[in-house]
């Protein structure tokens, strides 16, 4: 079984590129199928419904401290109040709920939210966030190593 890891974000807006950094760190890993998307809406086309484990990595607005990693195990486990707002089409929560409604979301799903510091245009990923990305990549590597 391969783990599908979907990394969401933009390279052009500072810490929004966190998930892409995670993808860079996981490139070439066995058992991992990497999918990079710019916006949550693109995920609608990326799941067929027959995946066993899907991991989604996305940057989040700052809540407490940049680089803090949040883990969710279902689309319903983060509320509309979580700072995962997207003004662009559909939010991650909306996309996951839609996929859940049409039975295209796997039973096992893990969502990593990495709190960012700055999402300014043309900023690079901040050090706190880069450190968190290495932690997330390590965790995903371990999870992928455990799957049969």
């Amino acid at each position, binding site marked *: 079984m391969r783990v599908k890891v979907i990394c969401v974000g933009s390279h052009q807006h500072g810490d929004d590129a966190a998930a892409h950094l995670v993808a860079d760190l996981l490139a070439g890993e066995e058992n991992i199928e990497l999918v990079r998307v710019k916006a949550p809406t693109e995920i609608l086309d990326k799941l067929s419904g027959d995946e066993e484990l899907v991991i989604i990595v996305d940057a989040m607005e700052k809540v407490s401290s940049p680089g803090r990693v949040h883990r969710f195990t279902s689309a319903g486990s983060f509320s509309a109040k979580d700072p995962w707002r997207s003004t662009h089409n*559909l939010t991650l929560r909306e996309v996951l709920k839609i996929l859940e409604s049409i039975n295209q979301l796997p039973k096992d799903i893990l969502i990593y939210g990495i709190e960012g510091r700055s999402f300014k245009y043309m900023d690079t990923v901040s050090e706190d966030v880069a450190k968190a990305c290495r932690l997330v990549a390590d965790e995903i590597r371990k999870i992928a190593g455990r799957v049969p």
Partner: protein
Amino acid sequence: MTEKSREYKVDYLARVEGEGALYVKVRDGEVVDVKFKIFESPRLFEAFLLGRMYYEVPDITARICGICPIAYMMSSTHAIEQILGVSVEGPLRQLRRLIYCGEWIESHMLHAFLLHLPDFLGYDDAMQMAKYHHDLVKKALRVKKIGNDLVALIGGREVHPINVCVGGFYKTPTRDKLSNMKDELKQGKELTKELIMWLSKLDFPDFEQDYEFVSLKHPNEYPMNEGRIVSNKGLDIAVNQFEEYIIEEQVPHSTALHTYIKGRGSYMVGPLARVNLNRNMLHDESKELLKQVGFPEQCNNPFMSIIARVAETLYAFEESLSIIDVYTEPDRPRVEVVAREGRGCACTEAPRGILYHRYDLSPEGTVISAKIIPPTAQNQKRIEDDLRTIAPSIIKLPHSKAVWRFEQAIRNYDPCISCATHFLRLQVDEE
């Protein structure tokens, strides 16, 4: 807010692409001010282009939008080819139409079924709608995916494709690869017919306006990449006359420029305008289905744009299949070009309407000026006019319903605020 005043606010309009707001002021029961505000930061792409080589322009402008990158690539390549004295014909020209079909399919399905349809069914969002209409959503997503697959097949990837260049493509697909998509395209076509039939049963608000519809018009085909700019009120100009007739103005409440037709006023671009002005150029099945669902010969109800959008999706499937049927692999993936000085402009039909690009190149082929006028910027003034007209009936509704109906009226236009450089906050004050 006094007794005589009311305030409606939507700080961030949902289900649009980009960031904007709406402000409506009502005094003694009269609507005195309506502003469709766009506050997304200016993107400054026209400035980024200065000093870049002509061949970098399509890839840079494609970055303006993740939903309609092909439109940016097509308008920029055609404008630059005009300067370089190049005309792209034959299978390369057809491939350009084919990749545009892919973009129309994915963009139209996203807007119609996930962003706009919840308004008609009384749901706050697509999440709620999907719970009760999961087969419908599944079909729409299936159709959307076929559009994405088509873009990826020709463009190298579905978002911000990388295979389009001045003169044609970096690499062209084999006949086999395109033929392999035919079954999927046929399936998409049939699903789209079902979806149009379903949409035709919706309850559309009774709202009509005397619009000036503007689109490209081509003598032999439904417009995508070429044609004259025409309207239902007598506008008939070449693309290089665009700036003589279409005037841009700055307004304090928007980071996107408003446009209007000189001496006339606001106008509408997009699927409804295209269908109204080019219905005879649709393929047979699209024409027949529009007739079957009773779509008016000239439709002046912006809420029915959802049907026009999906009818164009059906057209895009028919057109894709007919292009693939006769496709022969071109000898070369692109026409050779040589840099030269000059000015060129082009308009192509983005999913949301005409997208104008104009460039000046130096003798070495670097960009010395660039101008981009996206469809949402062109529709902004018209959106405000719609809101102003519809507001007196809307403000009689309970607050939450009023806000919802205002938003729906804006979503009729599928605004891409990021493209216009520009999202939505709704605020209605009454004094």
